């Protein structure tokens, strides 16, 4: 009997050790801090924005069919008062990116975005879709014309289609940030900035200078801003009532 108990105890210990080893392997640490419920939720948009086509498993992707219901949940849950969007994306599906941007822009709760590392291509409208946007000093954003993937049926028709799609992206960015349409188009079609390609790579402060992003800052600034917006928001609703 005792032997059996010893055995189970040993097994448990073994399992405990295994999970400990696993934890160190995956996180590089043993314990992670615990904290009470948060009224600010976080939505990371990392890797490629994946839309209609499923990418191979070695790609790190953010699937828009996962994000859209989460945005609805954030809007619906009364305990959630604000949303922070973490962006480190290379871009991806234009339609999926625009869908995400429109969803984020139409949320009634305060939203703040932080561009970390990169917010390229379709990441630009996503970054501007929030109430207030931050970019860390080292992050970059590549602004470039829409590129082609998929089938070309007729060249003029395809061109027209792409042109319209691009117009949608430009309109969204211009509407949701302080950048002027002229300036944004200038950056988009600039030559000589990207080797053998057209477009511009704006870094941290430059993005703020052009009016694309509201402020240079990281987590601390973003958290302060979201609390400020939450306070404003609750004050506004009180006044209305």
């Amino acid at each position, binding site marked *: 009997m005792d032997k059996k108990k010893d055995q189970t105890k040993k097994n448990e210990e073994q399992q405990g050790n295994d*999970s400990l080893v*696993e*934890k160190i*392997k*995956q*996180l590089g640490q043993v314990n*992670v*801090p*615990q*904290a*009470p*419920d*948060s009224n*600010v*939720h*976080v*939505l990371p948009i990392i890797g490629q924005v994946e839309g209609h086509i*499923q*990418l*191979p*498993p*070695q790609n790190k992707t953010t699937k828009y069919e*996962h994000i859209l219901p*989460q945005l609805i*949940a*954030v809007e619906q849950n009364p305990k*959630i008062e604000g*949303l922070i969007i973490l962006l480190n994306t290379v871009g991806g599906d234009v339609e999926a990116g625009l869908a995400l941007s429109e969803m984020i822009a139409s949320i009634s709760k305060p939203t703040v975005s932080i561009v970390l590392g990169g917010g390229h291509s379709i990441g630009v409208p996503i970054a501007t879709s929030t109430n207030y946007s931050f970019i860390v000093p080292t992050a970059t954003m590549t602004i470039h014309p829409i590129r*082609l*993937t998929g089938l070309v049926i007729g060249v003029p028709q395809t061109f027209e289609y792409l042109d319209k799609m691009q117009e949608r992206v430009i309109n969204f960015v211009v509407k949701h940030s302080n950048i002027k349409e002229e300036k944004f188009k200038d950056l988009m079609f600039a030559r000589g900035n990207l080797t053998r390609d057209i477009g511009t790579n704006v870094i941290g402060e430059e993005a703020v200078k052009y009016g694309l992003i509201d402020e240079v800052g990281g987590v601390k600034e973003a958290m302060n801003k979201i609390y400020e917006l939450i306070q404003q928001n609750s004050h506004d609703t009180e006044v209305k009532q």
Partner: protein
Amino acid sequence: MILYTPLCETDVFPINEADYANYEYVSYEGKLLYVEKQADGSYQLIQLISTDPQDYLNKAYQPGTLLS
């Protein structure tokens, strides 16, 4: 070798369909988890998909956790 092509990488080098088979999205205790199937039939958690930052501190959803 450098390939200059307007095609997507996956159009040039088709991917093995079997690669997809081991990865799955499952709903576990109400949370959406991205898991990889192990050789022994259990699932290892790769990514938690949640907007609640506290979920990421929950030991049960730490990456690498084996789900049975």
